[in-house]
């Protein structure tokens, strides 16, 4: 029996071929001439203090990778997109990157709002997305994504680690005040802190909850109030220019002598603050990549990264640079794993994404595991601000390292629910001095 194709069937087959997502068609993926990465980051606006250094780090690492022959023998090329114009623009840009530029991987977003808006696109476009810097816990707690992974820690661990540190080093505080930026991160991080604090040390009195407008340039009213209230602890998860302004204004009025500051995102502002950062306050870096890390797992690689960055840009890398680097290293590890699994053949988008589930990739300081729900487990190091001869800015001393798994909510649990179940004994058992 001979089979003939009617015109209608031919049309259906033709359309089917066009409409079917690439992952469903049986064709094996071709090895591309270059591996294209779409990177969304802030290139303008206040958050460009994070975005521009991260872009620099990304370009530097890609140059290094390409000089060494690329990833799995394929040279890498990055396309950068500005996050600042807002979500409707960014969502369009992600589509453009995938459908017009043909990027193979997306490195996505500093802002949590951007991440929440764009991560569902990984499913719709069937493209691997590495969330390289945003911290919101809502991403993987409210949804499940096959194509999205976060190659770093997240809000829960980044707030819980400084709290555990505070409870260990200054356990007798009785009052706390908060001064956060009035947007999602400021509100979320306070909710996480408050929930954990109520579980670990019930009875602490919150004397002030202050959320000055995002982008404020003056904190004198807030500082006056804090001077009058005399809280034992002042928490601020602010960043960028606002943190710099707040610390400068607060130290001028000697607020730091009455209260201890807890600044979980301080590292990125230390170079700008220089010597004006007071000593003995709790500072965090959203991870374990302090420039003075006493015992990185691979000191040669760590120094090579820091020194190459310093040489090229004449400044120390800040944490977004390290987070960007983690995404690049994760991509290298994941892609090589996927290629090895296919005995050297190029993986499809689905196969590439599957390689990232449960992936453990090395960073110069430690290793990061992308667990079952896509969340990365990044160690957290917190310490007290101090000065030494090596750096012209504050770095931590008396550091404590909290392994990522110990300060992250287990898979399938919401952070706020999990934090409520914490026992005060955790303070003594979690983390170790380094």
């Amino acid at each position: 029996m001979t089979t003939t194709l009617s015109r209608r069937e031919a049309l259906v087959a033709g359309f089917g071929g066009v409409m079917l997502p690439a992952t469903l068609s049986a064709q094996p993926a071709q090895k591309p001439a270059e591996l294209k990465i779409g990177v969304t980051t802030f290139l303008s606006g206040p958050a460009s203090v994070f975005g521009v250094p991260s872009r620099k780090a990304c370009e530097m690492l890609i140059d290094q990778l390409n000089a060494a022959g690329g990833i799995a023998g394929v040279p890498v090329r990055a396309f950068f997109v500005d996050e600042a114009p807002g979500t409707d623009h960014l969502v369009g840009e992600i589509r453009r990157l995938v459908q017009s530029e043909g990027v193979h991987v997306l490195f996505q977003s500093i802002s949590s709002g951007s991440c929440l808006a764009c991560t569902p696109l990984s499913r719709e476009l069937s493209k691997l997305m590495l969330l390289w810097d945003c911290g919101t816990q809502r991403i993987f707690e409210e949804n499940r994504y096959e194509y999205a992974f976060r190659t770093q820690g997240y809000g829960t661990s980044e707030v819980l680690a400084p709290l555990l540190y505070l409870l260990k080093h200054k356990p007798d505080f009785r009052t706390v005040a908060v001064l956060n930026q009035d947007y999602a991160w400021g509100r979320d991080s306070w909710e996480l802190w408050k929930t954990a604090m109520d579980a670990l040390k019930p009875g602490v009195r919150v004397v002030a909850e202050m959320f000055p407008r995002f982008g404020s340039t003056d904190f004198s009213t807030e500082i006056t109030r804090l001077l009058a209230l005399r809280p034992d602890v002042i928490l601020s998860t602010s960043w960028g220019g606002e943190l710099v302004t707040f610390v400068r204004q607060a130290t001028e009025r000697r607020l730091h002598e009455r209260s201890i500051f807890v600044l979980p995102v301080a590292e990125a502002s230390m170079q700008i603050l220089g010597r004006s950062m007071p000593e003995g306050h709790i500072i965090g870096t959203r991870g374990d990549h302090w420039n003075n890390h006493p015992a990185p797992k691979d000191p040669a690689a760590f120094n090579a990264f820091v020194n190459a960055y310093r040489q090229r840009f004449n400044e120390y890398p800040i944490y977004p640079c390290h987070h960007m680097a983690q995404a690049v290293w994760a991509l290298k590890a994941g892609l090589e794993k996927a290629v090895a699994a296919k005995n050297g053949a190029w993986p499809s988008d689905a196969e590439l994404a599957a390689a990232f589930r449960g992936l453990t990739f090395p960073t110069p300081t430690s290793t990061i595991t992308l667990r079952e729900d896509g969340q990365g487990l990044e160690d957290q190091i917190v310490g007290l601000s101090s000065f030494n001869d090596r750096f012209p800015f504050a770095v931590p001393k008396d550091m404590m390292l909290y392994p990522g798994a110990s300060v992250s909510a287990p898979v399938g649990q919401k952070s706020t629910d999990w934090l409520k179940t914490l026992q005060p004994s955790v303070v003594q058992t979690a983390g170790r001095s380094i």
Partner: protein
Amino acid sequence: MRKIEPILAILVAAAMIVAAIAAPWLRFVLTIALAKGIAVMGILLLLRAGQVSFGHALYIAFGAYTVAFLAPRFGDAMILLPLAALGAGVLGLLIGLFVTRYRQIFFGMLNLAMAMVFYSLLEKLYAITKGSDGIRVEIMPIAGQALERVTYEWTIFGIALGLAFVLGFLLRLYLASPMGEALAGIKTRETRLEFMGVPARGVLLSAYVMSAVLGGIGGALIAMTSRHVTPLLSYWTSSGELVFIAILGGAGGVLGPFLGAAAYELVRVYAAASFADAWQMILGSVLLLVILFAPGGLWGMAARAIGGRGR
């Protein structure tokens, strides 16, 4: 020129459809452009009366958040669109009663203030609005049909295009009616209108409510397209964007807003694609060039090219 406008509109629509078929990612950009074009028609209406509103992003954001809040409850685009339009209309009436007492810079600034109050509310009422993180809008059924993603996007594109035609047509009728002509009277001399027995405030108020409805529809379409709403929609820069588009497109005809919106979105996308660091500068230069060399906007340029008067 008025006769050529419908033909030109059909040509522009055809070009949009071809572009959306040729490049799937442009479909998204053009849907947003159509939605903004619809909202800018409202700005155009007020421009006829010589009033510039620096706060119409309020109605866009209101429409968008209406969709975001009500989508889980009445998850159908065919119900949500009229609801967003109605809600924006009622809000427009309430605010309009107050702001239409003022003219010129006071009118513009009061609108700006209203939009910023709404912006602050969206940010501050964190427990309800999820603050700057915004609210996700899932793919919703349209007229009872649960659609797959690509079909859904085409349908929204089609709805936006259809609404653009219908609303553009209605607006043309309105502008040619005595009520519409009275708007120009407010611009030239309001007292004369009153002498003729036409209540200037009533004329302006009805135009204002209409512009709010258009904003609400535009906002609802934006929410259905980008499927994530954030308070940034109501920020003053978004209002400025609408005025920018109105100037870029030209206030001559109802096609102007769509020409302006399409040009604006495309320039922004291509500028952002080619110069990720300097797209704002390119956008600014384009506007400067238009103001300096084509004060009638794109519509005026098109009119001159065809040989008619761009009004």
